């Protein structure tokens, strides 16, 4: 079966979840990836949405983090202050998913503005749950299409901290989680170098050349010696992924 690059991203992200992982999930590709994991190799993955739904098991892909189906299928629904204080901040989340508009080489993320804060070229939605997800989850996975506009030398605004200025930064800032373990893009997967904590090309997706990934990165991208090619999505993965639909899509499909 052929697949789109977005499907490849969802599959690559889903594969990084283990059965039983407790995941803090946002809408879009993260939610798709977490639900794909739940539908395939990680049926006991616990999904937490920042709307306060713990252990949501949606049949349809939610369109927003506050869909009624999340509450209906959750083990528990708690208030937003509680979800951030007792669950996220307390270090109970294994994997946090984040998107962003920009990342730098240390996985610091911008989801606030492009351009100057006071006179922005583009005003983005803002941090939402991201700053503390990046700070407190045991690990964070970032999903983001790769281009020189998104993989930048210097962020316009630092909304969430990946590895700050490099080794020692997270410790100095008192951040409790390990930080970003992978950035999954439409071209491949980047992982922090164990020494420098700089995002390094660890995998390319099938059909993608290294030079393509390097060209799509605004800093001189380091490439791992043991660079791998991502395994192509399996038929089972693609089937499960394509079966994930929002209630509206399901309705339109009849």
């Amino acid at each position: 079966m052929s697949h789109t690059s977005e499907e490849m991203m969802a599959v690559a992200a889903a594969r990084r979840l283990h059965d039983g992982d407790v995941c803090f999930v946002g809408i879009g590709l993260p939610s798709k990836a977490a639900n794909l994991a739940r539908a395939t190799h990680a049926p006991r993955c616990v999904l937490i949405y920042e709307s306060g739904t713990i252990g949501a098991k949606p049949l349809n892909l939610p369109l927003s983090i506050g869909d009624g189906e999340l509450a209906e299928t959750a083990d528990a629904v708690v208030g937003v202050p509680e979800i951030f204080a007792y669950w996220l901040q307390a270090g109970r989340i294994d994997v946090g998913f984040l998107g962003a508009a920009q990342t730098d080489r240390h996985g610091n993320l911008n989801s606030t503005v492009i351009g100057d804060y006071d006179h922005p070229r583009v005003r983005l939605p803002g941090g939402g749950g991201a700053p503390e997800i990046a700070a407190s989850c045991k690990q964070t996975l970032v999903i983001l299409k790769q281009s020189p506009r998104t993989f930048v030398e210097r962020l316009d605004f630092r909304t969430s901290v990946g590895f700050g200025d490099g080794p020692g930064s997270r410790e100095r800032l008192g951040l409790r989680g390990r930080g970003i373990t992978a950035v999954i893009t439409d071209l491949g997967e980047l992982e922090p170098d164990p020494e420098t904590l700089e995002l390094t090309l660890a995998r390319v997706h099938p059909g993608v050349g290294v030079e393509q990934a390097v060209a799509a990165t605004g800093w001189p991208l380091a490439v791992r010696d043991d660079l791998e090619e991502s395994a192509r999505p399996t038929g089972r993965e693609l089937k499960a992924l394509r079966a994930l639909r929002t209630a509206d899509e399901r309705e339109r499909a009849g």
Partner: protein
Amino acid sequence: MARIVTLEEGIAELVSDGDTVALEGFTHLIPHAAGHEIIRQRRRGLTLIRLTPDVIYDQLIGAGCAARLVFSWGGNPGVGSLHRLREAVEHGWPEPLELEEHSHAGMAAAYAAGAADLPFGVLRGYAGTDLPAHTMVRWIECPFTGERLAAVRALRPDVGIVHAQRADREGNVQLWGISGVQKEAVLASARSLVTVEEIVDELEPVPGAVILPGWALTAVAAAPGGAHPSYVHGYYERDNGFYVRWDAISRDREAFGEWIREHVLEAAR
């Protein structure tokens, strides 16, 4: 004891020009009808507070009600940008909009502090980000361990407005499903207005329900359908199509103005 009022009376009595107003709702139970009444009553210079300003705040901002926005995520969920918010920020139209920008965790802690009448809330947050320059955060030291933590100034709105499933005739309010920060927003506010789908004789207990006792509220108003296009668990579904259509309507000043005139200003209350 909450007075049972009409929505028109409630907004007229509780919301004044220049007030700090929180219309809360986390995807679910967003008080659209109350927001429209604020637009109809042409309030100006409001400081609007909300974790997730979405379509109703886009409308309030585009209609010129707001001077300032305190928020943590401003977008059209699942669709994209809020074009009226962006235009106010990027071009100062129809009014310049000052921003106080938080994270969700920070705002939740600030509301909880307000509800508990503490002057600040404490969290592990904001460290290493560029947000502190645009929000109300200071650093404090734990008096036992010496750890450095973020302190956020408590949110204490003049008026807290939320929507709920129902109230009884004493003004006791019951809401269930995703409850967001509504309880904190109401308890942190000096005055409060709750709009409800219906007013009933007795509140049947419901699993997961949050109760706001009538004596802790200022006013309750019936506003059936008052959360549309958001949803009310047990009453009606989210009108996802509207959120998609809003993207086109709100991109254009004229289309926006037309929509507000037709659906808000000239709409039957």
